[in-house]
């Protein structure tokens, strides 16, 4: 079982890279969604004020 640590290290790092990337995409999407909602509601408010 020589070098088993290297195999585990490779798997842990690889899964870590994919996990971090997936989380970063999800967080960026959540931040964009919030900004989009905020902008839409401020647009609606200014449109209502215009009426």
């Amino acid at each position, binding site marked *: *079982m*020589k*070098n*088993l640590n*290297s*195999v585990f*290290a*490779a*798997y842990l*790092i*690889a*899964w870590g*890279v*994919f996990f971090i*990337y*997936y989380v970063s*995409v*999800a967080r*960026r*999407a959540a931040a*964009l*969604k919030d*900004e*989009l909602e905020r*902008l*839409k509601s*401020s*647009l609606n408010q*200014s*449109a209502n004020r215009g009426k």
Partner: protein
Amino acid sequence: MKKNALGAAVVVLLLACAAYAAFFIAPTDAKQGVVYRIIFLHVPSAETGLVSFFICFIANVAYVLKRQPKWDWMGIAAAEVGLAFTTVCLITGPIWAKPIWGIWWTWDARLTSTAVLWLLYVAYLMLRTLIEEPERRALLSALFGIFAFIDVPLVFGSIRWWRTQHPQPVIMGGPGSGLDPTMKAVLFFCWAPMLALMILLMHSRYRLEAMRGDLDVVRREAEAA
């Protein structure tokens, strides 16, 4: 959202099955011992990275021809996902190389062309941050992406055309190359979850870019109001 979570759960389950097959079904290599099992991670991630860059190339060509934002979104999604897979390939390779070759890295044709590929797609992503105007950004990055793709056939062919420190291909190689049938079956089995992961990540990244497109439209409306 529910669909996304279900997709992610299926991919995690497939990855767990692949890891089980890599550790418990594939036989141990007589020469390299247990460390060769990194092949079940290293080769599928490398191949999946190349597939992603091919998708990026198709999207870049489609954008240049049709000028539709969806092709730009697809291009950026594929480039970023391809970069994630190539990063994994470039990390797992040296971890495997050190106990077998005695060195972490060498500047042979395969390793160098892969490192250049990684740098080219990092440059592709950096280029996009430097240009404000959306159409100009999409066109210039599509043209750069088409140029960057030239390195993909070089990466694929490097171990076939030149004698390198990196082993010759075990799949689609010449006479005398190949893998034990069980190892080969496990290798293909491990590639499937990687492709599923690629689709999941690309889909999420595409949606993110589409949302950014919507945000640009709303911003312009807000500025005009």
